[in-house]
């Protein structure tokens, strides 16, 4: 799976979790850019991403994610 494909699948996850079909994420997207992305929704987001890509992130990796680009890196590392 290349980076573009990861982004495509990630968009689906974001749309489901935040219940907004118009969301498109980029490398630079952060919590501030998406309505409802607070610390509590972050838990379900991480879990939904793990579920969609069938992987699980260590705590350290989750804590280091500053934007969607970091998330894509973490996914790419584990595929």
């Amino acid at each position, binding site marked *: 799976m290349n980076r573009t494909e990861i982004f495509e699948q990630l968009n689906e*996850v974001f749309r489901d979790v935040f*219940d907004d079909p118009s969301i498109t994420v980029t490398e630079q997207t952060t919590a501030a850019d998406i309505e409802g992305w607070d610390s*509590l929704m972050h838990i379900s987001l991480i*879990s*939904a991403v793990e*579920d969609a890509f069938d992987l699980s992130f260590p*705590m350290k990796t989750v804590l280091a994610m500053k934007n969607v680009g970091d998330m894509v890196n973490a996914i790419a590392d584990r595929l």
Partner: protein
Amino acid sequence: MLEALNYPFDPALLLKKRRSLKRELLSDGSTRIEKRIAVLGGSTTHDIIDMLELFLLNFGIEPRFYESEYGQFYEDALFGQELAEFQPELVFLHTSFRNLRFLPTAEDNASSVAEKLDRETAHFTAVWENVSTRFGCPVIQNNFEPPYYRLLGNRDAWDPRGWTCYALEMNRRFADYAAAHESFYLNDLAYAAGDYGLQAWSDPLYWHMYKYCMCLNAIPAFAYQTACIVKSIYGKNKKALVLDLDNTLWGGVVGDDGVEGIEIGQETSMGQSYAEFQRYLKTLSSYGVLLAVNSKNDEVNALAGLEHPDGALKPRDFVAIRANWEPKSKNFGDIAAALNILPDSMVFVDDNPAERAIVTRVYPEVSAPPLDMPEHYVGLLDRAGYFEATALSKDDLARVDMYRQNAARAEQQNRFTDYGEYLRSLQMKAVIQPFEPMVLARVTQLTNKSNQFNLTTRRYTESEIEAASKDSNRITLYGRLADVFGDNGLVSVVIGRQEGERLHIELWLMSCRVLKRNMEHAMLDSLAAAARARGVRTLVGYYYKTAKNGMVRDFYKDFGFTLAAAEGEDTVWELDITDYQNKNQFIEVNEGHYEQN
């Protein structure tokens, strides 16, 4: 009802799609009872509340939540002002092993651990008692999962210093409290953790990162078992299982394979699975769950299959048997009508997806679990929580007998052409009395589960019922009815509020199992007598229309009340009782011959 939320559900999907699922539920046009639920947590409760909300909406309950600040369950229960303003109707205390404060150390011995257990328990009893006195509402309390590591290995299970042992002792104490207190409901978190798998459940990442006492994916199943307690408290349990026969209660097709050819019993592994399922159902029925048969078979073959010597279920274990070639949806409706219960309160158990679809197309609110293979049947029905037993009265245990007696009554009725003659032949005896302590639990249960013969459909908690019984402005009456065939138990409840010379009838309900026996006449006579003794001249009756109580729309009219007001389909009725004539001719009331089972 949303299929995605019926057991078995996909936890990850529910967590991910919670928002759209909620939207879908809220826009489905169904009517729900509203409840204020306070969730007081010893850990993060956000996702638990989200999942609880979905399941409750799906059960016909629209919750409004109060969520305590993180970890503030104790402070909130004892002092919380905002909580008091919220006026909870139910308090859920979501605590876990992480909230135990006096865990034993190496220096402890048996007696010092016993002291710690006492202090630990006192911390929680203070919470429960404060909730009870401040809000008078039911409490749901988790017990404790085992610790996720064992300092003493297997010794941890018995040594008083072992934390595993400590959690078990705490659970024993919580169980003792539950056994002694009516409105206290234990939520078996320990079982949920074991069921999910303790290691996965206790994933420390979720505690350290999010202060969750369990992993995220375990939350839906845990929230579901919690929602089952709530819906059971509010009378939304199922009452009956309507069962297919071939490949559901035994392997094979009895009409083709013959009684000798079906798989049931100890001979084969498949036969054992079906035999265990039959034993499960038989045991379930001993707790008051009604069983009925809905099968495409010649009746003679169906009965022969049920007489198989290795099967636990016999024809007499069923309150209705429909074995014929009619569509199953028709049989399903006929069974509901014969038992006087709503189709929604029956679960359809059939291995054939096409048959399930036929029934749920006609009755969309009916649960029809997706049976796949016989070794899963028990687990599937069990985890679905259809019959969560928050209350277990003597009446529940006797229910199957009562329905059997009703079948005998129906047979008796066929022997009479005159309905009055039939009623006389039943030799009915009733007890009609003001509420007394012994009956409060059953009265409360009835107010929460009666839908059809219920004029106002007001729901009460046990403390509200108790308060009504002590209120000098209120007349409360319960009625029990017995006849030659047996005891129907406590079947009718009336509450009236006096205002000078007028008595407002706030609640009038009756169990459908005693329809058309003139019990309502006897209740009205007693109500009128009690009201007149207090100087009341007018009874004021209220009918509030719901989706389910159409059968009592003309109840007051039929009793000679006159229409005083109407708003939409809700009506208010009045009856002058200064010259009231008793209506009941068939039931002996309070004669002292009443024998309880």
